[in-house]
């Protein structure tokens, strides 16, 4: 494209054009660049940072976030949001031990809690489909589900003894930890669905411009229902993994987890206003958050400050995602219109 237009345009404008592409590139792949810079810088700052053990450790911590954030990417593609995933993780965590204590076998318990996740998500989706703001619906669900988790568990954390659940949270497949393998599978599945199927395209269309999607015959309500159901089920899967990792079912599991999930998704470049979403970005976003946290820990930074850093990263991500992104794409569009002017005029 650039080589085709290069001979026509004078050298000066070509330079501007290349500069523009550079800025666009920096904004679009800024997260990947930042991740790279952070990893390089940290590997000089701490000899432990870039070790196989530490990288696996970070990936394992990021895994449940990745699993849930893949679902969140679809929700945000439709211009929605789900604040209730952290509470759903707690409810699932508590239900896993409750069901095991009832004497149910693993092959019943796990599908059952996945079903609970799906139903909770579908409940969110049904309200959103009625036209209620997703923010409020899922905020209500956040406190409701956490409340149910406390009621069911009576506020106590109970150990999990099931081998399979523990394996899901702590086990290994060859060299890799099970949660990492699960996260990779979920991410690949999410990428395929988002970029290669009708459903992924429709989620983006609904988020981009709902009326246009409807005019083209897309069942907008069904798409919304499906994305919330999907993130609910993935939150349940994340809850199972976390329960296995922690070794107990706790109503305090997943507190503030929704923030990590949303931060990872937004950092990855998925638009808060819908219509734009990428799974690779979401995965990189989750890794970035965890690498920053891990790096600060290795440097001996006070954990309270680590929390502040996480908040600031989220703020920065939202800033990039909204204001900067819009300005830059407007700027790029103006530039493009300038270039095409001689072609479009009669």
């Amino acid at each position, binding site marked *: *494209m650039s080589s085709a237009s290069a001979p026509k345009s004078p050298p000066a404008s070509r330079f501007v054009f290349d500069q523009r592409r550079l800025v666009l590139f920096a904004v679009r792949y800024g997260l990947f660049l930042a991740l790279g810079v952070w990893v390089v810088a940290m590997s000089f700052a701490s000899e432990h940072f870039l070790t196989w053990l530490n990288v696996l450790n970070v990936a394992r911590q990021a895994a449940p976030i990745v699993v849930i954030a893949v679902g969140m990417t679809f929700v945000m593609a439709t211009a929605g949001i789900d604040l209730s995933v952290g509470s759903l993780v707690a409810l699932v965590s508590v239900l896993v031990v409750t069901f095991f204590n009832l004497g149910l076998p693993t092959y019943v318990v796990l599908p059952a809690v996945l079903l609970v996740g799906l139903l909770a998500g579908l409940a969110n989706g049904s309200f959103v489909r009625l036209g209620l703001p997703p923010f409020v619906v899922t905020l209500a669900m956040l406190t409701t589900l956490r409340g149910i988790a406390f009621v069911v568990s009576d506020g106590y954390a109970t150990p999990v003894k099931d081998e399979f659940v523990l394996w899901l949270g702590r086990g290994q497949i060859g060299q890799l930890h099970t949660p990492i393998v699960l996260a990779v599978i979920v991410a690949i599945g999410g990428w395929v669905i988002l970029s290669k199927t009708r459903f992924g395209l429709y989620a983006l269309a609904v988020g981009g411009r709902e009326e246009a999607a409807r005019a083209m015959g897309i069942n907008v309500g069904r798409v919304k229902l499906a994305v919330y159901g999907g993130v609910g089920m993935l939150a349940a899967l994340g809850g199972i993994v976390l329960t296995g990792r922690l070794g107990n079912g706790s109503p305090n599991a997943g507190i503030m987890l929704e923030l990590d999930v949303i931060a990872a998704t937004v950092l990855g470049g998925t638009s808060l206003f819908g219509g734009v979403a990428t799974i690779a970005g979401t995965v990189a976003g989750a890794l970035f958050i965890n690498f920053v946290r891990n790096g600060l820990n290795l440097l001996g930074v006070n954990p309270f400050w680590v929390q502040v850093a996480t908040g600031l990263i989220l703020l920065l991500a939202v800033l990039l995602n909204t204001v900067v992104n819009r300005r830059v794409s407007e700027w790029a569009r103006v530039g493009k219109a300038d270039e095409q002017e001689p072609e479009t005029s009669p």
Partner: protein
Amino acid sequence: MSDHLVEMRLISKSFGAVVALRQVSFALDAGEVVGLVGDNAAGKSTLMKILSGAYTPDSGEILLDGHPCHFDSPMAARAAGIEMVYQDFALVPELSVTQNIFLGRELLHRGLRSRFLDKRTMSERATHLIERLGLRVPPGDTPVRAISGGQQQAVAIARATAFDARLVIMDEPTANLSAAAIGKVREAIGNLKSHGVAVVIISHRIEDILETADRAVVLKRGQVVGERRVADTGSDEILHMIVAGQDPRRAANNGPSKSA
């Protein structure tokens, strides 16, 4: 009688107490371009929304190739070859040109990969389609939000003609477009006509109609006031019919016209 491509017979439609259309009849042939003109609330859009399946009429019938048919959704009308180009284009800004053209009717792979989008074929067909219409649009993977209003209109027209359309309805196709873009739209209408596609243009701009249409139909307060071959009328006469709500030639023949 019914060798028309489409015939709407005695269509009536009310919204609550408001009567939008009173026994309106309307017909057009393959390859014919008809301009539908009239004031605001004359019923132009309602009539075309009935034809494109967005509304169902209270009474009256629609004949396609002489056969009665019922469109209970825009999808049903599209399946029958009746396409609508919306005034706001109904494009998703974040999706690409190609994705918008095939939105809702994506092509899928065959066989084992039949659940997956056939992006390459869609992209090739989009390019071919736009060339056939004589339109100029940036590469198919460009997001629609990055292209100009005229190019967006071109995408909307390309989408309407992507699946062997027989009738394309355009709602205010030249609103908010530059002079150059308007020329392109008119050219595209001419291309459709030469491919045997019928076109209905809903427009406030009488010059659009005079420039592109074979025939103008004037509506006022839900009724057909009159119609003219574009070749034997002018903007003054059509404007008079829009404003006065009566056909001057008929009024001259029949004395004071019915004002019921």
